[in-house]
């Protein structure tokens, strides 16, 4: 079934888990409420367990895991959509959107304008930006994660930068002098 004995499979899985769990949980936590992030992280590692033979060696391991987590998170968004029917916060084209953190104890409250701007990007561009800036992957790792070329990653980053700059123009202004 796994091509390895259960005990060696557990050991291999345990190594992958120990190296990556916190990062995968954080990935999910940046895109889902913490209560759902825990489930999503667990679901991600269930996929890992079932596809143990497919997990690439480092350094491709974590990008691969983020690729799985990305689909798990997307599925959570779809499930939420089914449960609650159309939630206004979800874009009409069905794209997953970033939700502002609801558990302020655990996470810092991001600038709402930034979240809104990110949500206005296409899903493909947004994910590249987040993988680069929040997950701190290199362009090569992002390419592995998403199954696209390095060139495509750089194009998306460039496009997203231009668009974000426009969307966040006021946020980028230097702090003004306080007026009396």
């Amino acid at each position, binding site marked *: *079934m796994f091509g390895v004995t*259960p005990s060696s499979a*557990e050991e291999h*899985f*345990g190594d992958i*888990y*120990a190296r990556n*769990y*916190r*990062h995968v*949980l*954080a990935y999910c*936590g*940046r895109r889902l409420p*913490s*209560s759902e*992030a*825990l489930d999503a992280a*667990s*679901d991600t*590692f*269930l*996929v890992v*367990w*079932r*596809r143990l033979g497919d997990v690439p060696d480092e350094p491709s391991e974590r990008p691969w895991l983020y690729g*799985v987590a990305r*689909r*798990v998170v*997307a*599925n959570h968004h*779809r*499930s939420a959509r*089914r449960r609650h029917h159309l939630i206004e916060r979800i874009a009409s084209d069905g794209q997953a959107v970033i939700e502002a*953190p609801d558990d302020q*104890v*655990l*996470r*810092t*409250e*991001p*600038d709402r304008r*930034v*979240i809104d701007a*990110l949500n206005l990007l296409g899903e493909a561009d947004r994910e590249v*930006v987040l993988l*680069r*800036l*929040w997950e701190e992957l290199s362009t090569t790792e992002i390419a592995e994660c998403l199954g696209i070329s390095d060139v495509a990653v750089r194009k998306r980053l460039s496009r997203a*930068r231009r668009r*974000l*700059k426009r969307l*966040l123009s006021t*946020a*980028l*202004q*230097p702090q003004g002098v306080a007026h009396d």
Partner: protein
Amino acid sequence: MTDVFDVVRDANPIKDVDRYAEVVAGLDAQLHGISWRDQMIDDKPRVVSSEDAPVEHRSRRWWLAAAAVVVVLVIGGLGYALISDETSEVADVPAPTTLPTQAPVTTAAEATMTPLETVELFLERWVSSDVEQADLLVSPTATARCYECLDVNIKPWVEHKYRGIDIRTMALARASGAGVGYACTTEGEVVTCTLQFDTLLAANGEAGPEWVSHFTAEDGVISFIDAGFYPDVFNAGLIADYADWLETNHPEAYEDLVYFGTLLVNDLEQINAHRGLIAEWAAGR
């Protein structure tokens, strides 16, 4: 002027992944009110070899699938709850000593059932998708072996995300028309059952490989479940074939029913959708 990517970088809601994992795991433990380590009863296998056990009764029930066949690929399997270091580091989380949940509701007749009868009734309900009724035959303090837990692998049954023996998967298999066969033997309170899916999606269209589960039951209630490290009974090639067919012929459904090669069976809507589509796929093969 500030770089726009610096602004986005600063908006990262989780900058310290270690701290986040520590706190989230702690809150999760509080939320569930259970420290499964504290609830661990023992780690001794309470099983008997099916070869050694005297056969008290043997039954074999088959639900043969109708025309089309089914699949249920398991997301679940044996429950995978949080494990290892994240949990162990949450030392300051109060650990209630009682397990929640209602007591099993058994009828007077059920209370006098033998362990074998109890387990067979449990399986009968299980394979017929009557999950709630099946659960009533399991003690709220029952434990189960978790094959995907890394360190301690005996956990409270109620903590098993997918109910350990994978009731959910079996219910879905039944809902989709798959057959499940089982045969049980018993010695004292320990009941050993050999189970098998009957699905054309197993290799070569034959019934899938068997696996063995063990149960401990007393007074009409199951107190311990070792579902067994059951094999992957479904043929990955056929599942991939179905998924490819789905993507080509029903792309709109594919989006909601498949991800990463795994068939999504999270709710009845998805199950029913798969049933119809699998029948259509099978008919065209």
